[in-house]
């Protein structure tokens, strides 16, 4: 019995580690000329590293990247990302010049599920479904869009960017 339990937990940990190793490996290396920080790895699932188990310090309760359109990799800066949780608590954060945004768990920890909407200029886009538990937008919004992925988060349904963000 004790041996079985030990084996069960050992295998459980081993499987979890394998999955995590795979997720970390799939992220690849840092892009050239972009140092690790608030501007790095746009579009990637931030929670793989910023999920509390390292290697990054700190934990994000929600994070992602906003792009212009479904087909564009151009980021949108200054988008207001509004979050409301199942208890009605709200929080807002702005995307930076890389389109990235993140909420540290020390600032706001939603009571799941949560709902999100994006605001830019006079345009508002509300996510149709709740976020049940996924802290990385790219966990569900990975590219390419498919039968099991929504594709990246984008602000505008039309194809004309109002302005392109640049990080200088």
């Amino acid at each position, binding site marked *: 019995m004790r041996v079985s339990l030990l084996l069960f937990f050992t295998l459980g940990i081993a499987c979890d580690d394998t999955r995590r190793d795979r997720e970390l490996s799939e992220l690849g290396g840092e892009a050239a000329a972009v140092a690790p920080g608030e501007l790095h790895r746009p579009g990637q699932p931030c929670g793989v590293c910023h999920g509390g188990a390292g290697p990054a310090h700190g934990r994000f309760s929600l994070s992602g990247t906003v792009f212009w359109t479904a087909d564009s990799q151009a980021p949108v800066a200054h988008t207001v990302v*509004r979050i*409301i949780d199942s208890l*009605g*608590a*709200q929080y807002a954060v702005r995307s930076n010049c890389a389109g990235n945004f993140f909420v540290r768990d020390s600032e706001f920890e939603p009571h*799941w*599920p949560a*709902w999100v*909407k994006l605001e830019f200029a006079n345009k508002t886009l509300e996510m*149709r*479904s*709740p*976020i*049940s*538990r*996924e802290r990385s937008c790219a*966990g*569900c919004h990975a590219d390419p*869009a*498919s*039968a*099991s*992925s*929504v*594709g990246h988060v984008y602000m505008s349904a039309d194809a004309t960017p109002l302005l392109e963000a640049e990080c200088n």
Partner: protein
Amino acid sequence: MQLRAPSLARAHVSVLWLGPALACACAPASDDPSVTLRSPLRADFSAVSAVLELRCGTLDCHGAPARNLRIFGVYGLRENGLDVSGGSATTELEVDATYDSVVGLEPEVLSRVTAQKGASAARWIVISKGRNLEAHRGGARLTENSPADICLTSWLTGAVDSAACAADSFGPVPLAGEAW
């Protein structure tokens, strides 16, 4: 503790009794070994599916392919592998697939609940998990006696409460005095 080997005579008697007994035990009870289980009707399931899709079927929950309970549709997994999650509306084939997945969970319990016209519905895992009566990472998604809960449990009675299904709403509720 010291074990004694049985004598040859005792072993001989055991084999004489055991042989026929095992033969009887292994004989089929009837020619048809299948068991007929009852399940709520697919015809009534579309309205229930719509409730489950939004509340439970997102990609980060039961709209993911690795789950035992898989809910197909616009907010999660697409059945045909071609439609895009978040794209076109849920299809009837996806409702079929969700139905198959739902009635495949604890089918013997579901059969008893269905045969008893939905009595003690919380015996069935979909209700007990949905109400968070047993450990459920998603918490209470179907609060007892809420429209969503009535929608699902009425389906188990054989008469879906369409009004409850239609009345279900699952979205942000801001605090008093606040806007969303």
